[in-house]
């Protein structure tokens, strides 16, 4: 009799046992899938924040800017950025380009001043990069060319300004002279990172140019790559474009080379992988123990078939096949359910605002679990492999026991 057919018969014969072990495997697989997706979501979120708000995949800046970053040196700029942006957008590897002007500023309102970091941005282009539209909680985005400003929620509360109010921004222009301009608040944003909520003021980049006397200059240009694995190549290409344009003082840097952000990201990455590992061990334990239990519970059966002449090798193979079939179905069910749950959760997001009580300015951080090859395909194969292999030890042990002994165990 074919072992496979026998295996199938056995599975169907003792439904309860099969369901029990199958469901354990399915649940363990489901949870691991879900957990990997959540971790991927958290990590992805973190990474996305750094990329969208701070470094892009590639960042173009004046070579001397970083050394003097604390002084916010507007004159160490990327000149002629409009042209540069057009050229960069033509590159096939580039998904999005965002020019920005970063400037230290103070909000002056009702005779009080509040420090902040001004960002002159191209709101249309930032739809793809900073994606400010997702952070908007009141009002609308400023229009290009207008004296309109988007305030972060924390600062808005501190300053006491809301949509429709006017405030004056003070700062230093490129020539280290004074700069002052009155803006109308058109919107309030809640950024996903706490620090940004207290300081990022967004204005249209062309208005910032007027305020700061920057003529067609930006302090940085951020690039998003189509493929985030080919960032180094993109940076090299960007440098070529920069020299073709004759901008000798400007350099493009890939995100790994941008100071401490990348280091932090790798650290967080490692930390979460570590956590994932422990989950994995746990899940594996469950699968193993289930499979083992199943076999040990069937010692009498083993004794019987052994007495009937089945060879130890065949017995081991039989149980292997049983475990294999159950685990395929179970793991598949687990991964599919896990993926479905992930898909649902990633749409609605896991809203963790209740856990952040008492912290009024923080945004409700929403985790969006993400599916990836690791959380699905890998987990599936792993579960099947573990379950099947886990059958070896107990079945070999059991097969070696004398039939008489086996029959005696009740």
């Amino acid at each position, binding site marked *: 009799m074919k072992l496979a057919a026998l295996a199938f018969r056995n599975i169907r014969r003792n439904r309860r046992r099969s369901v029990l072990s199958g469901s354990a495997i399915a649940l363990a697989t489901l949870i691991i899938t879900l957990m990997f997706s959540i971790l991927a979501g958290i990590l992805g979120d973190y990474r996305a924040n750094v990329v969208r708000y701070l470094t892009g995949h590639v960042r173009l800046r004046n070579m001397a800017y970083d050394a003097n970053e604390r002084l916010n*040196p507007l004159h160490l700029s990327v000149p002629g950025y409009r042209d540069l942006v057009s050229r960069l957008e033509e590159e096939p590897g580039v998904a999005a380009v965002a020019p920005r002007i970063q400037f230290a500023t103070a909000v002056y309102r009702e005779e009080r001043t509040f420090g902040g970091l001004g960002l002159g941005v191209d709101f249309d282009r930032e739809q793809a990069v900073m994606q400010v539209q997702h952070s908007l909680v009141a009002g609308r985005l400023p229009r290009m060319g207008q004296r309109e400003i988007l305030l972060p929620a924390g600062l808005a509360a501190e300053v006491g300004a809301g949509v429709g109010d006017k405030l*004056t921004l003070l700062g230093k222009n*490129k*020539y280290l*002279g004074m*700069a*002052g*301009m*009155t803006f109308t608040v058109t919107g309030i944003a809640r950024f996903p990172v706490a620090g940004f909520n207290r300081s990022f003021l967004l204005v249209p980049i062309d208005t910032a140019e*007027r305020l700061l006397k920057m003529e067609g200059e930006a302090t940085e240009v951020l690039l998003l790559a189509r493929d985030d694995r080919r960032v180094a190549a993109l940076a090299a290409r960007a440098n070529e474009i920069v020299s073709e344009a004759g901008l000798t003082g400007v350099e493009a840097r890939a995100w790994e080379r941008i100071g401490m952000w990348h280091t932090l990201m790798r650290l967080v990455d490692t930390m979460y992988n570590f956590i994932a590992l422990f989950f994995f061990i746990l899940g594996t334990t469950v699968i193993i123990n289930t499979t083992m239990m199943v076999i040990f519970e069937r010692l009498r059966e083993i004794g019987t078939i052994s007495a009937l002449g089945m060879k130890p090798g065949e017995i081991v193979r039989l149980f292997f096949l049983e475990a294999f079939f159950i685990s395929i179905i179970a793991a598949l069910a687990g991964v599919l359910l896990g993926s479905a749950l992930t898909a649902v959760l990633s749409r609605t997001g896991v809203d963790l605002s209740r856990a952040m009580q008492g912290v009024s300015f923080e945004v409700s951080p929403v985790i969006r679990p993400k599916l990836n090859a690791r959380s699905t395909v890998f987990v599936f194969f792993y579960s099947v492999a573990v379950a099947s292999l886990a059958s070896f030890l107990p079945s070999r042990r059991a097969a070696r026991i004398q039939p008489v002994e086996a029959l005696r165990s009740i």
Partner: protein
Amino acid sequence: MTRTLAVVRLAAFLLLATATAAFAQSAEDIVRRLEANQRFRTQEAEGALIITDRFGSRTKTFVSYAEGRERMLLAFTNPEEKGQKILRLQDEIYLYFPDAEEVVRLQGSALKEAVMGSDFSYEDLTGEKSLLDLYEVRLLGSEKLQGREQHLLELKARGRGVAYPLQKLWVDAVEFIPRRAAYYALSGRLLKTLEVLEVRQVAGRSVMSRAIMRDALKKNSSTEFRVDRVKLDQPLPKNLFSLEALSW
């Protein structure tokens, strides 16, 4: 014999006392004449500030008006800051920006900020106290600067709250305007120096027309102050020193 000695001693003492008294008088006199020279009913000037730091030089041109020592209006005329104005009324400073819809009032710690990144702070623009109110002056002697005789004065702050607790002033013996000033911190370390490069005669008075303030702690950090045209004691438009006038 003892009596003669006593008389001689007394005479010497008195002589010395009057001489010293004469000296002390002299120092304060010098300051008084110095300040009288800088006192005017009104002043109208056109000039430039050239600010230099490690990144290079920037020139800012202005037109300024002043009435006594309490009111001043400075309007920038260079293209980058054209239309910006600074108004000082007693101890208050107001800033006007063409692109702002309100007038910015500077208070408290903001007054300690540098004007346009120069080596002058807003605080330096305020305060109508005489040097004699703030400092005890002592005449150290004479020195020659660029061939001209200068009275070298040492100014020690009388009390607290004086930004530069120690100053040295070189006052031209003939024209009674400062040719050089040195500003020191409490520790005695030199913080800034002011060098007057050119002097001009206007309406019978000597006026500084080019001066340069240097930061002694930072390399290449200085502010040159240049007056191209100045009119003294001419009538000025009414209401020039008012918040409304800022938006003209």
